[in-house]
C-alpha cells in the first residue's frame, strides 16, 4: 500500500515525523530514502521530537549509527550508505531490529538483504518545478500495522 503527499515546508515535514512518533513502538522500522537534502534528516528531527528526545539529531553518516536514549523509547538512527553486504554483522543490525527502540534507516537499499518483512518506507523527492521547499513524500507500508498507521497519520 502506498500513499503520496505534498509538503510545502521543512516545518510540515517535521510535523509529520512528530505525529508519526506517537504511534511507534519498539522494533518498528522506518526506512527513509530519496535525494540528498530532500528532508530525511528534517523528518527524523520531527520524529525524535515526537518521541520526547531533546538532544539534537546529528547526521549519522560518520559513525553509521547514532543512538538516542532520552525519549519515550530509544531511537536508533542509521545511515547505511556504503555499508556492505555482510558488513551489517559489524553493526549488529539484527540486534537493533529486534531490540528495544525505533529504528530509522537512511539509504536502506544498501541493507536490503537484512531487512525484516514489516516496515514503513518513506521516499522523499524534491519538486523543483514547484519551488525550493516543495517535496513529494511517498509512504509505502509493509504489514497491517504500518498500513493502519499511515491512514491515521495522513488521514484516510
Amino acid at each position: 500500500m502506498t500513499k503520496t503527499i505534498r509538503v510545502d515546508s521543512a516545518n510540515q515535514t517535521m510535523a509529520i515525523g512528530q505525529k508519526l512518533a506517537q504511534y511507534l513502538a519498539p522494533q518498528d522500522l522506518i526506512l527513509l530514502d530519496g535525494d540528498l537534502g530532500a528532508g530525511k534528516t528534517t523528518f527524523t528531527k520531527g520524529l525524535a521530537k515526537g518521541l520526547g528526545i531533546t538532544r539534537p539529531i546529528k547526521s549519522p553518516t560518520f559513525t553509521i549509527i547514532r543512538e538516542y536514549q532520552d525519549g519515550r523509547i530509544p531511537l536508533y538512527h542509521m545511515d547505511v550508505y556504503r555499508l556492505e553486504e555482510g558488513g551489517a554483522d559489524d553493526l549488529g543490525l539484527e540486534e537493533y531490529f529486534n531490540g528495544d527502540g525505533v529504528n530509522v534507516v537512511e539509504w536502506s537499499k544498501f541493507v536490503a538483504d537484512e531487512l525484516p518483512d514489516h516496515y514503513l518506507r518513506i521516499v522523499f523527492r524534491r519538486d523543483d518545478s514547484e519551488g525550493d521547499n516543495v517535496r513529494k513524500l511517498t509512504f509505502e507500508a509493509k504489514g497491517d500495522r504500518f498500513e493502519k498507521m499511515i491512514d491515521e497519520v495522513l488521514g484516510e
Partner: protein
Amino acid sequence: MNLVARDLVLSFETSCDETSVAVIENGNKILSNIVATQIKSHQRFGGVVPEVASRHHIEQITGCIEDALRDADVTYDDLTSVAVTYGPGLVGALLIGVTAAKAVAWAHNLPLVPVNHLAGHIYAARLVEPIEFPAMALVVSGGHTELVYMPEEDKFEIIGETRDDAAGEAYDKIGRVLGINYPAGKPVDELAHQGKDTFKFPRAMDSDDNFDFSFSGLKSAFINTVHHADQIHEELSREDLAASFQQAVVDVLADKTQRALKEFPVKQLILAGGVAANKGLRERLTKEIASFKDTKLELVPLSLCGDNAAMIGAAGEMLYRHGARADATLNADPGLEFEWLADEAK
C-alpha cells in the same frame, strides 16, 4: 646513563581510514608516529567504505607496530602503557586497534588506557607546546564539529556542537556537487582562495544565543544554487562558489568560537581535527584571537591535524596519570561522546 624515568606510551588509532601506531615519550615528545593511510583506496569509491577500511586495517596493523617500535628505538620492556582509541568512529575499524592493543597489553603485562578520539585531536596540541588550563578547543573534522571546554586537563565538556552535519562532511558533500572527489576539504580550500564570496549563503544559527553549529542549511542552499543554474544552463564560477561556501563555514565557526570565549575565558584556544588544516579557518581565527588579550591560539600543526596515533599517546599519557584503565573486555564504542555541559544547565 639516563636516570630520569622515561614514560613511554605505545598508542593505537584505527577509528576511520588511517592505521596508526606511535611511541610517545612523557606525553609530549614523538619518538615515532607511523600512519598508513587508506585514502587512495577509498577514493575509488568516492568515500570511506567501512568494510574496505576494516580489511586494510588488519593488513597493516602489526607492520605498523613493528615500525613504530623500530623508529622509536625502544623495546616492549621500555614501555609504560598502551593507549588506544575506542571511539567515536567506525565500529569495525575501531575493533582492529582495540583488539591489537588489548593483545599487546596482555602479552607484555602493560596497563591499557582507553582514549576518546576527540581527546586525542585536542591533545595533539600538547605535542607542540604544553596546554594551559582552562582551555577551549574547536574540534572540526569529517565526523565532528564541537566546542569543548576544559577547566582541567582531564575534564572535557561540550559547550557547543553541530546540530546536523559536521563541517568536514559538508565540505565532502558540496565537493561532490562541484565534481571534487573525497576528501574535498583541501581542494575546496584552494579553490576558495581564488574566488570571492559573491553568493552570500546563509550563516545558520549565527544570531542564536548558543554555541551550536549547523551546516545542513548551507549545504542545501549551495545545492539549490547550483541546481537552479544547471536548469537554466547558466555557468557559475566554481571559485566563487567555493569561496562563498567556505566564507559561510568560517564565519559560523569563528563567530560561535568568539562568543564562547567571551563566556568562558580561557588561557588557550586549540584548533584541532582534520578541518583545522583549512587555511581559511586558520587565517580567520588568527585574526580574531587578537582581541582576546589573555588567550593564546594554538593551531595544531598540519602534520598532526589528520588522524594519527601520536595524538592518542599524548592524551593517553595524561589519562594514565589520572587513573584511566581498561581491562581485556574493552569494546569499541562508535558513538562515544564527551559530557554535555548544557545537559546540567537545561
